[in-house]
């Protein structure tokens, strides 16, 4: 019995230490990012350890500089953010439009090739994105979609569809099929069942699927790099930030402001939908 109580006491202390350490480790880099975005670059270079600026040294000039267009002496992040928003909204809308009917079919209908479709989606993850990106880029160039936001949207849809189908399908599988059957007896067609019954019932999961693909598209880097490097007016925030960070001419604190602008929309969306998103992703995981 003694060892039980000793262990319990040690573990109770250890647990608090672990939680505190993990929270600090996850939060500190983001706090550092936020603080540096308000610091003047010469203050950072002079005193890198004094991270917290005194009140009179706080500046918002970094944000003005990073957001302003090139003509106004800035780096055009306002436009990058618009590009990212267009791509992410386009990708998430298109993903939902494709995934809802497909998930419905995969849970409700028995058709030729059903199981093969599921395997196809799994196989996608075996290959590095880099080997997919190059032929897609060459193919899109031929079709005239190479250096365009439309091409990027199509590529992102393909990247997010497999996980989105998985999330939505797990949810739909939990809705009793007898509801569909009751509607059939009332004379509803397949389309009516889908639009009037399945979609409203699955709305929370559909929203979290949309958010998931928005976040993937907003954060993505490699495709943007290959597709849009040459076209500065089409850069997304991720691409713009890395391109500007590669050179020496832009000060790091200005780029920190850029990082904050890149991160904040994702954190807000995640804050709104954390519950739905994590439950959607882990659906089925607790069943072993």
């Amino acid at each position, binding site marked *: 019995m003694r*060892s*039980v109580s000793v*262990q*319990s006491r040690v*573990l109770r202390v250890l647990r608090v230490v672990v*939680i505190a350490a*993990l*929270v600090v*480790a996850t939060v500190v880099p*983001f706090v550092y*990012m936020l603080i540096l975005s308000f610091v003047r670059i010469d203050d950072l*270079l002079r005193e*890198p*350890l004094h*991270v917290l600026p005194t009140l009179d040294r706080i500046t918002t000039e970094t944000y003005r500089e990073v957001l302003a267009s090139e003509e106004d002496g800035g780096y055009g992040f306002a436009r990058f953010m618009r590009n990212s928003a267009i791509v992410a909204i386009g990708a998430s809308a298109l993903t939902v439009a*494709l995934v809802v*009917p*497909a998930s419905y*079919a995969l849970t409700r209908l028995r*058709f*030729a090739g*059903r199981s093969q479709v599921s395997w196809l*989606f799994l196989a*996608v993850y*075996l*290959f*590095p*994105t*880099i*080997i*997919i990106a*190059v*032929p897609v880029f*060459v*193919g899109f160039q031929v079709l005239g979609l190479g250096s365009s936001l439309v091409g990027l949207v199509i590529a992102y*849809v*393909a990247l997010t*569809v*497999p996980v989105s*189908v998985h999330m939505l399908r797990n949810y739909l599988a939990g809705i009793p099929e007898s509801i569909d059957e009751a509607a*059939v*007896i009332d004379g509803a*067609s*397949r389309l009516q069942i889908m639009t009037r019954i399945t979609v409203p019932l699955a709305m929370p999961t559909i929203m979290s699927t949309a958010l998931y693909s928005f976040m993937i598209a907003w*954060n993505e880097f*490699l495709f943007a790099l290959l597709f849009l490097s040459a076209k500065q007016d089409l850069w997304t925030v*991720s691409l713009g930030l890395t391109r500007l*960070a590669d050179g020496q001419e832009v000060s*790091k604190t200005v780029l920190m402001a850029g*990082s*904050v602008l*890149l991160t904040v929309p*994702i*954190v807000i969306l*995640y804050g709104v939908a*954390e519950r739905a998103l994590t439950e959607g*992703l882990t659906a089925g*995981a*607790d*069943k072993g």
Partner: protein
Amino acid sequence: MGSKLRGFENRDGITLVTPVVLVVAAIIVIPIVWTVVLSFQDARYVDVARNGLFNELTLDNYADVLAAPAFWQALLTTVEYSVATTVGSIGVGLVAALAFRDRFRFRAPLRAVMLLPYVAPVVATTFVWQVALNPQYGVVNAFGTQVLGWEHPVNFLSSAPTALLTVIVYDIWRYFPFAFLFLGAALTGLSREIEEAAVVDGATPLQKFWFVVLPQLLPTVALLVLFRMVMAFNEFDDVYLLTGGAAGTQVASVRVFEQLTGSSDIGGASATAAVMAVFLGVALAIYLRLTAKQRES
């Protein structure tokens, strides 16, 4: 009416699934097949633009790939990196999930905060790490030299053994939330009765964990190992953004990227990617074989 719907089931199912399958096929399956074809061709960008799929077939790319010491080095780096980040992120994720198992004040908001490294844009987080670790103006080196008494600032991301270690630590930081999320869900699903019975029988907390909780988590752990290994093996963004593949961090994906953009050697890059995919496939087959018994029981 019902039988009429059943009669159209096959047709409707195929109609509803086709758009998704077409997009996935066009953007993912065809490019993979194309890559395999290109790996047998001595192709540069111009050739591909002019002739598309139809260039002369050759095995030269594979001979070059297998004869290059840099390839074997990249393979070794990839394996070290994948194993270390997989073990590290799942280990930390498991510890985190256990610590968060029982209720405490602010559990829900703190749990949400812990997932930030995973959901935040990789470009932003790698940039913050780069700045924080910078030898001139980074807070880590400033702290090390001024408070801890380091003689010199450490070149975390640009000198040989530390660069790979730093990338591994970054990836453990970025991906432990993923393991935390899934192991947390698995822990919630466990019935507490067996554990209570073990406690009644006098099991210590560590015995309870080792003999009761951990065995029940093993299926989830096995699945996570599979996920993480595949993702880490194919990882590009994190390494490229942190070090650009310099200082002994050239993993396979970064090497493929450099073959493509540096020397525009599409054939060679495709062959490298294909060989890596074969290695990954073999490793997966062995892993599934080894864990097959466990999954049956």
